[in-house]
């Protein structure tokens, strides 16, 4: 019986860390009432060195406009393979976009930063419109954006 319990304890200990290596995270981006068309938004992550690590969401489905998401485009060359399966509609002025993703735990408290690039038709581009470091302490907080983004935050 003791052997069984020991085996169970061991395998449970091995299993739990694996289960806990990812968690659902909700990213919330609210736009200002800037008085223009729907905004294209690139939501992506950079690592501790400031280098592009990957994209979490693209709001806006037409690749020909991605060059106006300047920082994201500079890092990716507009490669749509980066955003297959994580692309949705553009977001209207004053609206709030909520995306829930299953994100790796390794992204948090490891120097990664969440960024939003924004672009609106016939208006100025908004590279790195908002950014927030991905830390446990920042969860539930909101940061202000610069041009089109009113606020950016995440919860988990």
């Amino acid at each position, binding site marked *: 019986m003791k*052997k*069984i319990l020991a*085996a*169970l304890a061991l*395998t*449970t200990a091995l*299993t739990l860390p*694996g289960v806990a*290596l*990812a*968690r659902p995270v909700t990213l919330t981006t609210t736009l200002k009432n800037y008085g223009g*068309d*729907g905004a294209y938004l690139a939501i992506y*992550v*950079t*690592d501790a*060195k*400031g*280098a592009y*690590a*990957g*994209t979490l969401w*693209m709001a*806006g*489905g*037409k*690749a*020909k*406009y991605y060059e106006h998401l300047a*920082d994201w485009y*500079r*890092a990716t060359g507009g490669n*749509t*393979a*980066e*955003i*297959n*399966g*994580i692309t*949705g*509609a*553009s*977001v*209207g002025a004053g*609206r709030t976009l*909520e995306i*829930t*993703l*299953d*994100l*790796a735990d*390794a992204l948090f408290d490891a120097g990664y930063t969440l960024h939003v690039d924004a672009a609106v*038709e*016939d208006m100025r*581009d*908004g*590279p*790195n419109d908002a*950014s927030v470091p991905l830390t446990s302490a920042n969860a539930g907080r909101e940061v202000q954006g*610069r041009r089109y983004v009113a606020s950016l935050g995440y919860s988990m």
Partner: protein
Amino acid sequence: MKKTFAILLASTAIAVGAGIPAWSAMHGAALSSARADENRLVRLASDDDRGDDDHERSGRRGDDDDRHGDDDDDDREGDDDDDGYGGSATANPAPAGTVAPPANGLFGSGAAPKVKVN
């Protein structure tokens, strides 16, 4: 003894089933980071209001005047998907839910994102 083996087998199967995808995600994150170090040492922080991104984009995205409250996917009339900006055709990305998210090491699983616009 058979029971012990059965329990060990079952729990090991569970550990492997849950552990390998999670380990892969972690490994993918490390690879992604390494790839960024090697190939993309582009510093992205745009802290300032740069003058070079302030250009107007006249004529961009067709001539649709449906402006206020436009949260749609800008599928505008007369705006073909294959008329690439600047003359080059670029394939549009696959929408969420049609394929799994990219294996960039950021996602814990292949689950489709849940999206809501208020």
